């Protein structure tokens, strides 16, 4: 009898242990499956991210690239399909959809992941400071560059200058330290650093002439000679303009025009000659001049050229934020360069609110030399694009002390028809 009872007990416990063992095994395998599911999702995500990077790279190499002839990329046990669409507000929108396939218990399963990115043409105005040729000078400890920075040559730093925006160079960076008392080589890239990045410096004056001819305003001398144009912007959305043949001294009688009708698309272009600017801008405009040989292609600043309201708001510690009340925007394009006139109005500071494009030089001061008087501060609130840096002041105080602050609105918005390269940049990335 006792033996039978024990047998029943043993059988009962065996059954119980079988159930417990089954549950215990399930629990263990569930823990492993949880990790496996993370691995599978990560793998699918990596395939999508890789495909998106491959597509972006193809576009950087060839802006006209529109996808693979067979738009399926196989990698790491899965595949990715890249699709392209072109919405109105961007040049191209890419969607990399990845499918990672795996087998479990003899069955095939798949996991999907997506990476989306948007590309837009690289517009020069979005740089806080673009210089085609950096030269042999250094940015040193105490220098702060506001906004994105790019150079097509090698950048030299000495000590620890600070870059608040992203820095890109085509030829790398030469970081020098412990020289002239500037401390160790430790430049601070607050917005990131990337090299090599190629953003060629080009200016298509024919395209600008075309835009100004169809809805904008074109100035040209009837005889085909070089023409000087003087524009004084008024805060009431009018412009006072006059002209003269380049090389002569007398200006035509100024005419006041309503900017709405003067240029409907906001572009004002001098076909060849020089441009003289001043005033208070109300609206969004791009003004510029092409060169016609000799001393032409210059934009001369005769006085402050500012928006109705400063685009920057200053907060604590010298930090600036975008002024939401400022809706005006100006692009100034000089096929030669922008020059601050040496006149009475400019000898006590000059304020410039604009994106300045100097194709054959950089912003400078008329007749600048170390024997010039101290002219105060040159404040540029906007962005500075130039072929190479020019002198605007000397350490003995002659000329200007220059302060350049980036207008962050230029990052996602541009003055009308402001020059852009034919290459793309990534403006949005979702993964």
């Amino acid at each position, binding site marked *: 009898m*006792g*033996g039978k*009872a*024990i047998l029943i*007990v*043993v059988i009962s*416990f065996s059954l*119980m*242990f079988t159930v*417990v*063992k089954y*549950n*215990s095994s399930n*629990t*263990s395998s*569930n*823990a492993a499956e*949880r*990790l496996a*599911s*993370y691995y599978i*999702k990560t793998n699918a995500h990596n395939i999508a991210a890789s495909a998106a990077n491959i597509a972006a790279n193809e576009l950087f190499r060839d802006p006209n690239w529109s996808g693979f002839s067979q738009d399926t990329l196989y990698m790491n046990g899965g595949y990715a399909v890249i699709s392209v669409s072109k919405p109105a*507000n*961007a040049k191209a929108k890419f969607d990399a959809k990845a499918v990672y396939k795996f087998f479990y218990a003899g069955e095939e399963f798949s996991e999907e992941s997506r990476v*989306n*990115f*948007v590309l*837009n043409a690289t517009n020069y105005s*979005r740089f806080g400071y673009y210089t085609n040729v950096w030269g042999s000078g250094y940015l040193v400890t105490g220098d702060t560059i506001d906004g*994105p920075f790019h150079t097509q040559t090698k950048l030299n730093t000495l000590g620890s200058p600070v870059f*608040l*925006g*992203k*820095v890109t160079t085509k030829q790398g960076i030469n970081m020098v330290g412990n020289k002239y008392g500037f401390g160790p080589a430790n430049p*601070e*890239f*607050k*917005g*990131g*650093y*990337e090299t090599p990045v190629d953003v060629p410096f080009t200016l298509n004056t024919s395209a600008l002439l075309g835009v100004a001819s169809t809805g904008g305003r074109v100035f040209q001398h009837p005889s085909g000679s070089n023409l000087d144009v003087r524009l004084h912007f008024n805060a009431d959305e009018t412009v006072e303009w006059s002209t003269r043949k380049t090389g002569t001294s007398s200006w035509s009688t100024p005419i006041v025009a309503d900017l709405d009708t003067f240029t409907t698309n906001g572009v004002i272009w001098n076909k060849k000659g020089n441009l003289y600017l001043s005033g208070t801008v109300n609206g969004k405009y791009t003004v510029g001049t092409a060169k016609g040989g000799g001393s032409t292609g210059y934009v001369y600043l005769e006085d402050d050229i500012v928006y109705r309201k400063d685009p920057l708001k200053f*907060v*604590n*510690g010298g*930090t600036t934020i975008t002024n939401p009340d400022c809706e005006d925007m100006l692009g100034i394009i000089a096929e030669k360069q922008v020059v601050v006139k040496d006149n009475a109005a400019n000898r006590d500071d000059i304020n410039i609110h604009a994106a300045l494009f100097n194709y054959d030089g950089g912003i400078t001061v008329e007749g600048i030399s170390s024997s010039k008087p101290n002219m105060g501060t040159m404040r540029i609130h906007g962005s500075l694009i130039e072929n190479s840096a020019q002198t605007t002041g000397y350490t003995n105080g002659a000329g200007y002390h220059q302060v350049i602050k980036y207008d*962050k609105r230029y*990052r*996602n*918005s541009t003055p009308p028809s402001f020059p852009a390269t034919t290459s793309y*940049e*990534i*403006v*949005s*990335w*979702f*993964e």
Partner: protein
Amino acid sequence: MGFSSLLDIIGSTMVGGIILIILFRMNDSAVENHYLNSGELIVQTNLISVVELLEYDLRKIGYCSNWEGAPVPGEALLSATDTSISFLTDVPTDTKPFGDGIIDTLKYWTGSPLEEDVLKTPNPNDRMLFRQVNGEPPLYSNMGITQFKIVYFDALGNEIPLYTLIANASAKQPLGIITMQIDITVENTASYGDLADEENEVYSKDKSAFWRQIRLAAPSLNNR
């Protein structure tokens, strides 16, 4: 019923008793193993859930579905410490999985192991993980996190000292963070055994799971 039958009964009772003792010990062992396995499952599940959530959100620092409304990349990170991070992003909604095009502020941080809610659990080291969108009340959950540490790196791959980050955040200067390393340790919030029994320490590291993301980069933090 003779003497031999009596011996049979006594013998079988003894054998049965021994077998019962063995079975009881096996039962005890099975229950313990099952508990530990369940605990491991909870730890693994919690860890993966936390990691998936963090990776999903942190990869979108500076992202906005309407790119013209995206924040300045270098300024998308608002504040950062080794146990908290606050940044601008476009949080997806139920109807818009890519975001609604309006920038949100997202903040993660861990609480103290001495908070009332976590003191109720047997584990003395666990702490809450908080997630707050804009000014809404923070959502939190006790996932058994005992370590949540973020290390930040600049564009050249150098570690950024914490005091620099805090100083820059208070001055509203870009923090210069390009990549980050995230360390997370998750332990079981419950326990098996006696906490007072030092020889049977139940909160040792073999009952926890550790995960490290070596270099997490948010593409939108650095894309222009």
